[in-house]
């Protein structure tokens, strides 16, 4: 299963990778929404882990794009962000997000959530 992690923090991307790879997941990375959309392997992603606050293109904009792309629209999107306000969560949900994890994430919790969609 391939997980696409989109986050402007390279540390977070690395930690996601370190948490998921031993579990047998392949992890793709991008620094922001724009970079994610132009990633050559984006169609191979089975699930998106998306940060909200990112420069150039934030997580919400990225999810709008994902939901409009017929290749990607059915892939689950889980927000992984420091944001925890209900209005933001609702915005993510309304955009078609499948879940919301507030950072810092705990690896077992992240894995559990991803397994819900495998």
């Amino acid at each position, binding site marked *: 299963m391939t997980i696409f992690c989109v986050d402007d*923090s390279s*540390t*977070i991307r690395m930690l996601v990778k*370190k*948490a998921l790879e031993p579990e047998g997941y392949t992890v793709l990375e991008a620094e922001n929404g724009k970079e994610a959309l132009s990633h050559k392997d984006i169609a191979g992603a089975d699930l998106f882990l998306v940060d909200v*606050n990112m420069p150039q293109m934030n997580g919400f904009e990225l999810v709008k794009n994902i939901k409009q792309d017929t290749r990607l629209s059915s892939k689950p999107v889980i927000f992984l962000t*420091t944001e925890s306000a209900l209005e933001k969560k609702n915005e993510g949900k309304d955009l078609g997000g499948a879940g919301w994890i507030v950072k*810092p994430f705990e690896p077992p919790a992240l894995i559990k959530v991803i397994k819900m969609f495998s």
Partner: protein
Amino acid sequence: MMWMYILLLAMSVSLYVYPNGVVPALIAVVCGALAIKAIKEGRAKTRKSVSPTVTDAVHSGSGMEDEANRVTDPRLKDLEDTIAKNARDLQAFAGAREEIAVAVADFGQAISVVESLSDIVISKTENSSKDLSTSIFSISDNSKRVTEEIKELLIEICKGEDSLESDIKKLTKEVDKLDLVMKDFQIMSSEYGQNTDVLEKNVDGISEYSRAITDLADKTNILAINASIEAARAGEYGKGFRVIAGEVQKLAKQSKSISENINTSILKVGTQLVKSSKNHKEIMESGVKAIRQSQKNLLEVTTILTPQVALLGEGINESETLSSSVTADLNAIIVSLQYQDSIRQILGHEINLLNELRGIMENVLVSSGNGVPKTGDRERILDLAKKYFTVRDEWLAFGLNIDEGSMENQDESLKNVTIF
């Protein structure tokens, strides 16, 4: 009033973030400036309420009449004093406004300095936490691998068909089997002994029997000799009898010699039998002794190995506990490292807040008639900030020279070392 709240908020935020920094000082300056502005607005209101009266008074008459009125009317004198005072105040305010404008512009510069310092914090923490995580993960990968290898080895030793545990079980079985063999051996050995006794007795019996035959033969011989003597004495009449006696004598000699042969061979057999049975007994005894010794050795081996296998089993459990505790520690580290992302965002938010504050202050200046805000004196702000710099990267961030003395070391690993 709202300005005051915003300023108080800004001040407390900056005091929280930079307890010893430049920013609180600057904010204090700006607070003062805005307080002056508030006073000025109050004065302006007063002026508005006074001015119409003055104008009315000035334009109420003309020429000499006015002059006379001015001299005589004490009210007019008061108004003139007020106008003169207001003019002085206005001049003072103009000076103060100029100072406030400079302070606001400097504040803007200070924000950009703080922004640069925040960038250092961000990049430094990001790099260091990344390096840290890389090393932690490589350590954990290695420890995981080693633990796995140890565990596999222990399992190999302790469990399965070729394991030490099954070897011990086999050994224990062998010991039990040896015990059975030994018992059989002992039974065999004692039966053999009994058989030998019977044989010896039989040999003795046969010897007795052959001695009896010899005796009988001797007696027969004597009888035969006597019979021949009697036959000779009978002369011609005893001729036939003498022949018979001769034959009997021959027979007795033959039977004696046969019996003697039997006796000799039986004795020989008996001696050999006793000898061999003695050997046999010795062999059997030493066999039993050897079996007993090897049984004892095997028992010792299994006694020593059994608790060791149990210890190894504990080792497997311990290595499992260890690896799960490593995983738990790693998860805790993954959580901790993520705070770096939060710190970065919080610093960004502080800068945003400060920038917004600057915007508000600039607007206040514009609306109070100070025109377009100036650009602050970066050099002066940097001089101010430099007082607090203690970290090399702070100097480097602004391209400032920092005198660190001579640190020319040949050894790359000592590049931060100065030997006095």
